[in-house]
C-alpha cells in the first residue's frame, strides 16, 4: 500500500475505499463513453468532513482527484485521471434544509436533481434547472457544469439558481460563498465557482432557490415541411414579445427515431417539428395563447396540435426528451454535440451542418433548444467501420468551429471537459486562456483537481467509440 492509500485508509473504512480492478472498471468512463481511464482508487465519503480530509490528503501527497456525481457528463468531465482518485459523492445525498417561505433549499452535492423538486413540490415549488438527465444527475455535477435544460431562455442555467455554496478548494481551504439571500455583497464568488468543471475543488453544500410551480401550461406541437419554416416560426414568436418557457425543434431523423422508440405521433410529411410552451397564471396563459396560436397559424405549419390536457402535454415532452436516445438506437455509435449559434442564424447553421454531414458521408440528427440557439447535433457512425470514428470526430469539430465563426459558443451546457478542450482556443485567445489558467491556479496551484480537462494539451485518455450511456441502454435516462 502506498503512503497515500494508507492515508486514505485512515479516513475511510475499507468498504468505501475501492482499489480492486473490478471496482475500478465501473468508474472508467462517464457519459462520454468514448474515453476511459483507470484511477488508482475510488473513495466514497459519506460526510463533508470526510471529503475535506480526502482533498487535504490529495493536496499533501500531490495526488490528482476527480469529483464524481452520477457520471453523466457528456464531455468527459468526470472521466478519471489515470494516477488519481475518484471521489464519488453519491452518498452525500441529504437535503439539509428546505425553507418554503424563503423558497430556498440547502443540499449536499450528491442529491439528485429531481429530488430537490420532489422535496419542494408539496409546497408548490420546484427547482428550475431541468437537464434531461435530471432523474439521475446530481446537483454537484450540475453546479460544476452549470447545467441547463429546456427552460434556459426564460429561467437561466444552474448558476442563476445557486445562491451560495460551501466548498473545499483544491488547496484544502474550506470556503463559504454567497448566502441565503438572493443578493450579495462583493464579487460574485458563487457565480465564479459555478461552471468550474471540477477544477476548483468540491462543492459540499449548495444553497439553491426554488420557484413557484407555474400554475398553467399551454404546449403546442407544430409540424413544418421545412426546417427553415420552423426556424421562421421561432423568429416570429420571439419578435412578438411573448416569452415562452421553452422553444424546441426536432428534425426529420429525430422524428423518425422518436416515432420508432416511444411511438410518438407527429404530423406526416414534416421535416421539422416545433414545440412551444407557455406557462404562468391561467389568465395570462389564456391571453398569451391567443397570440401564440395566431402566430403559429400564420407560419404555414402542416399541422398545429395544442395539447388539450396534461396527458397530451406529457406525450409531447416524452417524444422530445427521448429523441436523442431514440436516435442513438438507429446507430451503433454516436457523438452528441453541444454548440450555440445566434438564434437568427439557426437556419443557416442547420443547412451547413447538413452539407458538412453529407460531405463526411455520415448521418446527423438535430434536436435543439431553438429559443436560445443551442444546437445538439447527434452524429451517427459505426465505430467498426475503419475511419468512421475519425470522420465523425472531424465533423463534430467542424460544427464547433462553425458555431464560433457565427459568433456563438463551443458549449451551451455540456461543458468543455476532455472532449472540447482542443477547441477552447477557437473561442479564446492565448491571453484569455492564460487568464483562465491563472484563475484555475489560484484555486488549485498544484493542478490536482480534475487535471487534463477544459484546457488544451495534456495526455489524451484512451479513445474508443461513442454510444449510449449505460443508463440510457437500460432505458433509465434519455438525453437532450
Amino acid at each position: 500500500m502506498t503512503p497515500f492509500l494508507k492515508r486514505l485508509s485512515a479516513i475511510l473504512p475499507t468498504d468505501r475505499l475501492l482499489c480492486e480492478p473490478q471496482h475500478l472498471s465501473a468508474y472508467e468512463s462517464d457519459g462520454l463513453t468514448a474515453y476511459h481511464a483507470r484511477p488508482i482508487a475510488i473513495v466514497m465519503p459519506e460526510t463533508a468532513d470526510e471529503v475535506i480530509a480526502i482533498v487535504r490528503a490529495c493536496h499533501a501527497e500531490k495526488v490528482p482527484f476527480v469529483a464524481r456525481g452520477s457520471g453523466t457528463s457528456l464531455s468527459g468531465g468526470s472521466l478519471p485521471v489515470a494516477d488519481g482518485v475518484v471521489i464519488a459523492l453519491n452518498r452525500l445525498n441529504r437535503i439539509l434544509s428546505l425553507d418554503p417561505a424563503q423558497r430556498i433549499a440547502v443540499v449536499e452535492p450528491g442529491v439528485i436533481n429531481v429530488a430537490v423538486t420532489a422535496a419542494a413540490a408539496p409546497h408548490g415549488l420546484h427547482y428550475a434547472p431541468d437537464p434531461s438527465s435530471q432523474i439521475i444527475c446530481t446537483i454537484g455535477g450540475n453546479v460544476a457544469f452549470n447545467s441547463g435544460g429546456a427552460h434556459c431562455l426564460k429561467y437561466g442555467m444552474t448558476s442563476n439558481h445557486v445562491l451560495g455554496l460551501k466548498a473545499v478548494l483544491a488547496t484544502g481551504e474550506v470556503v463559504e460563498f454567497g448566502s441565503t439571500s438572493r443578493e450579495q455583497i462583493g464579487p460574485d464568488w458563487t457565480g465564479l465557482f459555478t461552471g468550474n468543471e471540477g477544477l476548483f475543488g468540491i462543492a459540499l453544500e449548495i444553497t439553491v432557490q426554488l420557484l413557484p410551480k407555474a400554475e398553467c401550461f399551454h404546449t403546442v406541437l407544430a409540424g413544418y415541411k421545412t426546417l427553415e419554416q420552423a426556424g421562421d416560426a421561432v423568429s416570429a414568436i420571439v419578435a412578438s414579445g411573448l416569452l415562452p418557457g421553452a422553444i424546441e425543434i426536432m428534425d426529420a431523423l429525430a422524428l423518425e427515431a422518436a416515432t420508432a422508440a416511444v411511438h410518438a405521433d407527429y404530423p406526416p410529411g414534416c421535416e421539422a417539428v416545433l414545440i412551444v410552451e407557455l406557462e404562468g397564471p391561467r389568465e395570462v396563459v389564456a391571453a398569451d395563447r391567443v397570440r401564440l396560436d395566431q402566430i403559429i397559424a400564420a407560419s404555414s405549419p402542416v399541422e398545429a396540435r395544442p395539447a388539450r390536457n396534461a396527458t397530451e402535454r406529457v406525450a409531447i415532452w416524452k417524444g422530445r426528451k427521448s429523441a436523442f436516445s431514440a436516435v442513438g438506437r438507429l446507430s451503433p455509435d454516436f457523438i452528441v454535440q453541444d454548440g450555440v449559434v445566434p438564434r437568427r442564424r439557426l437556419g443557416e447553421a442547420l443547412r451547413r451542418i447538413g452539407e458538412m454531414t453529407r460531405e463526411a458521408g455520415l448521418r446527423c440528427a438535430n434536436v435543439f433548444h431553438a429559443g436560445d440557439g443551442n444546437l445538439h447535433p447527434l452524429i451517427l457512425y459505426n465505430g467498426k467501420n475503419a475511419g468512421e470514428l475519425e470522420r465523425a470526430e472531424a465533423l463534430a469539430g467542424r460544427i464547433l468551429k462553425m458555431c464560433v465563426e457565427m459568433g456563438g459558443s463551443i458549449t451551451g451546457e455540456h461543458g468543455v471537459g476532455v472532449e472540447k478542450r482542443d477547441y477552447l482556443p477557437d473561442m479564446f485567445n492565448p491571453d484569455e486562456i492564460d487568464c483562465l489558467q491563472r484563475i484555475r491556479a489560484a484555486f488549485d496551484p498544484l493542478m490536482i483537481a480534475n487535471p487534463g480537462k477544459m484546457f488544451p494539451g495534456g495526455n489524451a485518455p484512451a479513445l474508443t467509440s461513442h454510444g449510449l450511456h449505460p443508463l440510457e441502454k437500460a432505458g433509465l435516462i434519455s438525453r437532450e
Partner: protein
Amino acid sequence: MSNHITPTTVSELVSAVRDHPRLLAVGAQTKPRLSAIDDDVMRLSTLKLSGITEYEPDEYTFTALAGTPVREIAEAVAAKGQYLPFDPLLLEAGSTIGGAVASGLSGPGRFRFGGLRDFILGVRFVDGSARELRLGGKVVKNAAGFDLPKFFVGSLGRFGVFAEFTFKVFPSAAATLTLRLPVSDPTKALEIFDTVGLSRWEAEAVDFLPTGDAVLVRLAGPDEPLQILAQEIFRHFPGEILSATAADTIWSDLRELRWTTAENSLHKVAISPNQVPALCIRVSSLSGDAHIYSGGNVALVSLPAGTDATSLGLPALTLRGTGPLWTLPPTPPAIHQAVKLALDPADRFPSLA
C-alpha cells in the same frame, strides 16, 4: 498633475492601465463612496467609452461600452419593446453600465427574473497586466470557460477595468399594474413577501416602502389578466391600484433614491426575508430609513451621518457616506487574495480591504 484620465477608445484604455501603477475606474460617480480612495490613485473615467456597439433585438442581447449611461440602454431597448429585467437604479442620475456591474446594484424588478448577475453574458476588460481580454460570450447561452462576467458583478473595480459588456434582455410585458397594500408593521410586510413569493401571481416587484406604511406589488403581463390578479391579491391583502402616473412617480422615486437625503449615508444590504423585521427595528433605532425590495432579499438603508453600516451587523456595501466600503469576513479566505493576484499581480487596482 491631474488625477483623472479619460480614454476615448479601448486601446487608449489599455495604454492608460499600462501607464498607471495605481488606478481605479470610475463612471458617473453616482455612488461616491465607491470611488472615494487615496488621491495618489489615478482615476480612469469611462465616460468617453460610451455607446451601444451591438444590439440584436431578435437575439435578446446587446453589447455596450462600459461608460454607456444605463438610461441610454434602457431607452434603446424600450424602443424595440424590450427591457432590462434586473431593473437598474439611478438611471436619471446618469449611472453607467460599468458602474452598475461594479456595484452589483439591481432594482425592484429583480424579484421576477433575477438581478444583474443573471443577465450579464460577456465582458471585455483590461486586467492588471494591461491585457485586453474577452470572457463569457455574446449569445444567450454559453458554458465555455469560467464565468468571470458574473464574478465581476459587485467587484468594485478591484480586479480589472471594464471596457464593454454583453447582456441579455427580455421582451417587455404589454402592461404593468402597481398595487399599494397598506401595512401596520414590518411583520405584515414579511407576510406579504412570503405569500407573494409562493403565489401563482408571478409579481415583478414586491417592495416595502421607506415610509414603512405600505408594500408595493408590481404585476406585469397582458392587461386584462392583471386586473383579475389584482383583485385576487386584494382578497388576501386589502389595498388599491395606483394610477399609471402615481405608479410611475413612486417607482421613479425609488429607482432614483429620492427618498434618501444627501447628508445621510447609503448602504446596500443583502438579507433574507426572515431578517426583515429585525433589520427594520435596527434601522429605526439608528434613526435611519430603508427601502426593502425583491421580496425581502435586498435593502437600501439610509443612516444619519456618523453612523456606518457596521452597526447593522449584516453584509453591506456603502454607496454614499463614510465608513468601511464593504463588510468583509473577519478572516477573508485565502482564495480572495489568490484570485486578486491572478488578475492583478502588480496590485494596480485598489486592494480588497
